[in-house]
């Protein structure tokens, strides 16, 4: 029993308001800390006690400090972050793909193709001119080089994406390890019912980061910490234990550069490897894999189709049964281009005199050069009945549309993520005005509590004086 309950009430109130002040101060200090979840002091009345035969209140106590957090919002934030990661990865790499195949630049495949046919036009106007033949040969070589260059840039982009996937897997594994360690640390720190706010915030951030990369489900299992699993339910982390690590192993599918592309899977704790179905991974990795195995391969296939159609159309003219070179020799066995893919397309001729401009031995005959020029406007069956340049134009539209759609999707995902982040901030973020008001509130309460102790002191003084 206290000498006077006032002392106890005042002392308890001082401590409680001080904790309130500290919590508000901590919130203010972390107003700009990424991932910070605001906290609040939970005050409660002391248990009423009997004093002078009366059951009465015994002041206040700070029960605990708790985070203001909405777990549903946190889960939604992870979902939209996953979608955002996937959409941004797709957008970035589809824009890069569109840049590789950009025919709006000069020089580009389209302009080099135009230049090639302009040279064929020159030869048709002067089939006996050596200069015209040299120019056609040079433009043919430039066309083959540009096609090779585009194929090589596509292959390099695919390899870059493959390397990025491997780097992401490595980063994700570091986060998986960190999350297991954080689960352990949180379990240890919260044994007496307190909340390890900083550690929880760190885990929330790590979960978001992992969700962005691979897409995860996180379930709080209470005492054991958080269970983290992939979209197909495969558990990565169980409390403080890493169950599976992600793995990117060279697979059996060859890339555009001939080297193997990485397959995605997991390694169990016994190091055995299990391949993952494509639905298991989402987020950035899924976006990257979709572009690597989808749009990029399709663009390369279509470029190969363009190259083989170009080569066969030009060779059909050059190797026409009646075609003759400048010296009147038949050129049935002398192709213009060699190679059937974009990467292997090359000039088969080296001597400009061997270009077949004529279909007879008559001087001035330009019939074959005119036929070569006709390839420019000829509908190619292999290209769905379009011309070579029409095909390139359609490719521009297709790749541009893919990139534009990916940009729209990324913008939409960004907006959704900002919306949820904003909702999360509305609940868990710090408002300085609010905290300053809290600071004033607790400061006033602290001053008043000090006054209670002063009054109690005076009452005690009176008692002591009575005894004298």
């Amino acid at each position, binding site marked *: 029993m206290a000498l006077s309950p006032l002392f106890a009430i005042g002392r308890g109130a001082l401590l409680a308001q001080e904790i309130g002040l500290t919590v508000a101060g901590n919130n203010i200090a972390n107003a700009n800390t990424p991932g910070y979840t605001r906290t609040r002091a939970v005050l409660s009345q002391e248990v009423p006690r009997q004093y002078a035969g009366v059951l009465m209140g015994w002041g206040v106590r700070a029960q605990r400090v708790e985070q203001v957090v909405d777990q549903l919002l946190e889960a939604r934030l992870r979902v939209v972050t996953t979608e955002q990661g996937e959409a941004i990865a797709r957008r970035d790499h589809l824009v890069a793909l569109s840049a590789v195949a950009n025919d709006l630049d000069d020089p580009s495949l389209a302009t080099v193709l135009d230049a090639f046919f*302009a040279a064929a*036009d020159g030869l048709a106007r002067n089939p006996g*001119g050596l200069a015209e033949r040299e120019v056609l040969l040079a433009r043919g070589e430039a066309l083959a080089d540009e096609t090779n260059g585009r194929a090589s840039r596509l292959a390099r982009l695919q390899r870059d994406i493959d390397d990025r996937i491997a780097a992401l897997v490595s980063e994700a594994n570091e986060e998986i390890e960190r999350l297991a360690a954080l689960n352990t640390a949180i379990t240890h720190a919260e044994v007496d019912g307190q909340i390890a706010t900083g550690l929880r915030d760190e885990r929330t951030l790590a979960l978001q980061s992992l969700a962005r990369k691979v897409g995860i489900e996180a379930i709080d299992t209470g005492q054991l910490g958080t269970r983290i699993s992939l979209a197909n339910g495969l558990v990565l982390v169980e409390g403080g234990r890493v169950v599976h690590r992600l793995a990117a192993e060279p697979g059996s599918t060859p890339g555009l550069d001939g080297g193997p592309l990485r397959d995605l899977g997991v390694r169990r704790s016994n190091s055995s490897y299990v391949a993952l179905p494509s639905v298991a991974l989402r987020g950035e990795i899924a976006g990257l894999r979709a572009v690597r195995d989808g749009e990029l391969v399709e663009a390369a296939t279509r470029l190969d189709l363009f190259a083989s159609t170009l080569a066969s159309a030009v060779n059909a003219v050059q190797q026409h049964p009646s075609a003759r070179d400048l010296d009147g020799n038949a050129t049935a066995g002398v192709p213009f281009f060699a190679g059937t893919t974009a990467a292997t397309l090359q000039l088969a001729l080296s001597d400009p005199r061997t270009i077949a401009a004529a279909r*007879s031995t008559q*001087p001035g005959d330009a019939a074959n050069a*005119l036929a070569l020029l006709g390839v420019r406007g000829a509908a190619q069956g292999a290209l769905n009945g379009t011309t070579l340049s029409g095909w*390139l134009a359609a490719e*521009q*539209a297709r790749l541009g549309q893919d990139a534009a759609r990916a940009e729209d999707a990324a913008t939409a995902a960004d907006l959704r993520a900002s919306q949820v982040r904003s909702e999360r901030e509305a609940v868990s973020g710090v408002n300085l005005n609010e905290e300053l*008001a809290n600071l004033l509130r607790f400061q006033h309460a602290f001053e008043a509590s000090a006054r209670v102790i002063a009054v109690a002191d005076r009452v005690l003084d009176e008692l002591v004086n009575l005894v004298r």
Partner: protein
Amino acid sequence: MLRISENQRADYVQARLMRLQVDVRVLQEQLVSGRRLVRPEDGPLDAAVVVRSSARLSALAGQRQAAALGVQVLHAQDEALGEASAVLVRAEELATQFASGLYSAAQRTAAREEAHGLLQELVAVANGSFAGRRLWSGLALDAPSPFLDPDTPGWTAASAFTGSTYEFEVQVGPHAEDRVRTSTRGDSVFGAALEALETLETALATNASVTPALDSLAAARGRLSAERASVGARQAQLQERIDRVRGLVLQEETARSAARDVDFAVAASRLAEAQTALQALLATAAQMNQSRLTNLLRL
């Protein structure tokens, strides 16, 4: 109760600021480069239009050059045909003059020599070239003379032509049928004229009647006139094609420009708008920072 955290406020300002800055940068780039279409994703359909238009413009440039070459060649042929006609006119005068048969042997010899000279002149015209290309031998470059010199032993008009029988065509449109012939084989044009002159020369040398030569000369001149008319018609066709190509080039350039180039007035006004919004946002952000409880309470 709706709460607004510091981060929400900062995130909103930051996101809006970034978007406006990107808008300003893009518009500035467009105004500097004059193009609004830089990447295919800026306008997929417009990108296709630009690629197709560029290919068509390149083709049209070739067609215009081919037509221009054709016009030049046909002009040279027209002049040559004019010269050849003049030769035949003189030959007809000579034939008419000697048709009476009253001239002395010396006069006939002189006339024969003149007829031979006219023959040589006609062969020279038929061997004519333009920019190193034989006008009446498939426009072959640096080719030997298609007609043998009349002084060559054993020369006959029938076997004088040894040139190319290829009739040169220029491509003036996108299709195979859009070709215009710009050369005619020399024997077809000058064969009759050479034979007529040969007949005249032989008649004068052998004191035979020149009447058959007169008929041949008239027929040969008719052939030259017909060829000249054909050349004129093709010249007009090519000239018309050049004019049409000019119009098509303008149309294609307009279409390409509409798809690719920036509308300066629109871009400039959008830039001004974006810059104003940027300034307003910065001012608002500064104002937001002043509205703090600390400022009101002077803490």
